[in-house]
């Protein structure tokens, strides 16, 4: 819905051909560096990877450091736990662990004498029933009459008895759609709880012969909440609401998230 507002503003500005966008210099402060944890446990086969790094200056990527010599432990609700190996600087991996659905997981990270923890639930799988495509009407979605676009439909049945959270990842010929402004496609099931529903990805510029693959991830609530709000953080600073840091399940002021998801995938070839 916030996008809706942006669309209208954009439309209005375009309408009068009056707006002007330019890159400017802004003097930003440098906040104290904080630990960043990014890790997921999934129903796919391991190993599962956890990345430790530090935040840095907004305009200077060289200040972003990986964090070595951390202690990373992932445990499940049944008492199984595993210490992750640092396979390369800042990158930690499991060896034997296998993510199970309908299970709670927790992470503990010790770095520079501080302890960070988080918990997340790995939900049951929801299979994609079918996928199909359809040619869009010419001139839709702000395109001109000559641009041919397609709508890709991904049909699945949402379980009625649970509140479910989804993330979609779209690959064209194996290439993942770049994340950027508002492109982490996450949703809860409020609008389609308990029904078989075709989610439509419209206005895609693909050509016959292209293979479009969709990964349908059922995610834990915290994972959903993180990606929902990271969209706001990445796209923030405009005329939307006051920007804020994404909502994380990590404690002790750590940035990032500890996520869990259950993956199903399907694909369709455009003809």
């Amino acid at each position, binding site marked *: 819905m916030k996008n809706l507002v942006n669309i209208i503003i954009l439309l209005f500005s375009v309408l009068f051909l009056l*707006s002007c966008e*330019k890159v400017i210099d802004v003097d930003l*402060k440098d906040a104290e560096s904080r630990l960043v944890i990014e890790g997921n446990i999934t129903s796919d086969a391991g190993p599962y990877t956890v990345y430790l790094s530090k935040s840095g200056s907004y305009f200077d990527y060289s200040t972003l450091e990986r964090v070595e010599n951390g202690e990373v432990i992932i445990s499940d609700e049944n008492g199984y736990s595993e210490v992750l190996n640092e396979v390369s600087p800042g990158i930690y991996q499991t060896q034997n662990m296998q993510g199970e659905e309908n299970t709670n997981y927790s992470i503990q990270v010790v770095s520079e004498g501080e302890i960070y923890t988080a918990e997340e639930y790995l939900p049951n799988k929801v299979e994609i029933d079918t996928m199909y495509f359809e040619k869009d009407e010419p001139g839709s979605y702000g395109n001109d009459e000559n641009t041919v676009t397609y709508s890709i439909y991904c049909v699945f049945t949402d379980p009625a008895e649970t509140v479910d959270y989804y993330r979609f990842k779209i690959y064209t010929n194996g290439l993942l759609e770049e994340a950027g402004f508002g492109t982490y496609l996450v949703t809860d099931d409020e609008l389609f709880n308990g*029904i078989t529903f*075709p989610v439509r990805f419209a206005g895609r510029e693909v050509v016959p012969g292209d293979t479009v693959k969709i990964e349908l991830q059922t995610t834990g609530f915290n994972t959903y909440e993180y990606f929902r709000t990271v969209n*706001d953080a*990445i796209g*923030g600073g*405009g005329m939307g*609401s006051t920007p804020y840091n994404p909502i994380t399940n990590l404690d002790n002021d750590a940035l990032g998230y500890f996520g869990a998801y259950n993956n199903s995938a399907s694909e369709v070839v455009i003809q």
Partner: protein
Amino acid sequence: MKINFLIVFFLFFTQVLFAQEKNTLSGYIKDGSTGEELIGATVYIQELSIGTVSNVYGFYSITIPAGDYHVRYSYIGYETEVDSIDFYANQVINIELKPQSTQLDEVVITGEQSDENVRSAEMGVVKMDVKDLDVIPVLFGEKDILKTIQLMPGVSGAGEGSTGFYVRGGNTDQNLILLDEAPVYNASHLLGFFSVFNSDALKDMKLYKSGIPARYGGRLSSVLDVHMNNGNSKKFTMQGGIGIISSRLTLEAPIVKDKGSFIISGRRTYADVVYSIFDPDFRGNSLYFYDLNAKANYTLGEKDRIYLSTYFGRDKFEFGNFGFDWGNKTATLRWNHLYNERLFSNTSFIYSNYNYKIKAEMSEAVTRISSGIEDLNFKQDFSFYANSNNTARFGFNVIYHTFFPGELTSEGENAFNDIILDQQQAFESGIYASNEQKIGTRFNMNYGLRLSMFNSMGPGTFNTYDSDGSITNTQEYDSWENIINYYGFEPRMSASFLLNEVSSIKVSFQRTYQYIHLLSSSTSENPTDIWVPSSINVKPGIAEQYSIGYFRNFFDDKFETSVEVYYKDMHNQIDYKDGANVLLNEYVEADLAFGIGRSYGLEVFLKKRLGKFTGWIGYTLGKTEKQFDQINEGNWYSARQDRRHDISIVGSYKLSQKWTLAANWIYYTGDAVTFPSGQYIIDGNSVPLYTERNGYRMPDYHRLDISATYMGKQTRRFNSSWNFSLYNVYAHENAYSISFRESEDNPYENEAVQLSLFSIIPSITWNFKF
């Protein structure tokens, strides 16, 4: 507390009622050419050196001892009339003042008595006669009262081209905007670039920044009271204007000459049609708004008049399979009745409605989203002109609010599940009494008390939340079952003390309550903003404001100056927790955070009222801060509208009978905003790291606009004028927003991108009247 209220109430009534018996001179003051009632015209008894002014219905009443008098009726822009009367019994004198033929020589900003600004107890008040907007340069040539008041000290615009405004640090939803007494819930068109006020249909407006009289209630920061024209009761007239993006047409005519009249005024934008000519791809889509104002009045006899006024406006946006429209509806039925020469009554039935609707057709399903608010309002006001030193006002009103927080429905093969949030209903009521009193020749005061109440009622299921947003209790309520009550005592006071003939000191105090709140998903004016009632979780907002000012006129009242300082405390303010979702969220109250605010500042105003050159300079030095336990680690932070400096310079020069030139220049400190103070990488993307709330500033804003108005041939039957405007003459790229993102061209580089909306914009408007 209740007892205190009653004591105050009775005290001044006894004083008023036992005042010495005298006779009363009363009547209506009107424009002799159109029959429009004149608001704030002066009646002055020369032998007694006392006077009064007409009220918003043109009615005046003054009680004086018997004698032979000269009574002077005057109003700026009109020829003064002096009547000799033998005054030994109650008398009714209705006066029609003739417009001055030389009126065009003087561009005046208000119609008030020349030294009224110094004498009156009112402070922090902005008055404007809508005619005076004609020459001020404006964006797209659309004159707009909401933009013009932003040129006054203490009032600042909510952004480039926006009709939203902040008054003395208050949020945009803390302004009570009344159109013929009906609250207007969303006063903007097209995301705030235009207001709902079509100036052709309007007569005048008054903005109270402080010392809000007790008869107004419901918002914390200000009251903007706008009156529509009644329509010409003498003859049929038609006026209108054609501009680059919109046109206007107004018809006025008597129903029965001198007894009743009506006015119908419409406006529609057609920028989308123009745009389609240049961009064929846009054809078939639309983006426009229209307004319709209509009003009729009729005099039933010496003592009774009725008025019916309505407003209807809608924005329409259609883009392919997507449709979005929103707008306000208001209707006011008023009955003026004179119980006697001294007791004036007005009874109003008021309807207000705002809603938006979205319709999207996709995937073989039609989805509709809608939300809104609707009011039924009964209002009874009395003015009692007790004697020449006291005018008492008292009355009450009851509003029945229905809130439609939102619903989403869809139908078709691939329909969504519906989301329907429960309607909510509440009574908001107020009872008030106030008195305007002159004590001696130097001291004027206006004091009053308002008792406001809010009763939220079932049916519905309502949750109670703790500060983390977790539900602690859920309760179901039957129809009309009381959910929660709030009430508040709102003392209001303002006073002036005349130091000498040309200068005065004024003080004022007010406490205000606000029981309904606007939840906005964005910082710009937004059609999807929703009004919500106070509830178990949301307490009514409370504000107290203290102000003191020095007023002085120079050179025979040609120049007016004032300096005012104010301090405002605000309680139970609302903001959002991180990640709050305002739209279609059943648990939206769990996403709200509550805190306090304070605002203080200094306003300097210098105005030249008369002569070939007129205009004003307004300067505000201000600070506005908020404190929320859950935001910014509980530390005070600058509100978005915290502007240290705000300067407006407005001037117009009458070059000749034909040409008038005008210019305004605006400068203000950039808004307080939140920018990143770092970054980190997630999933290969740069995520900004935010620390302090509103710890950065947008660049300072400044802009110069100029205009030239050419009066065409003026005959008795037809006259026309051309207005040429240039907005943002030196094309300063003011930042509308600054956003941060990864560079598209260079990996591992971030950039700050400034969006500017309006560069230099010329416009031309042709206005006519016959």
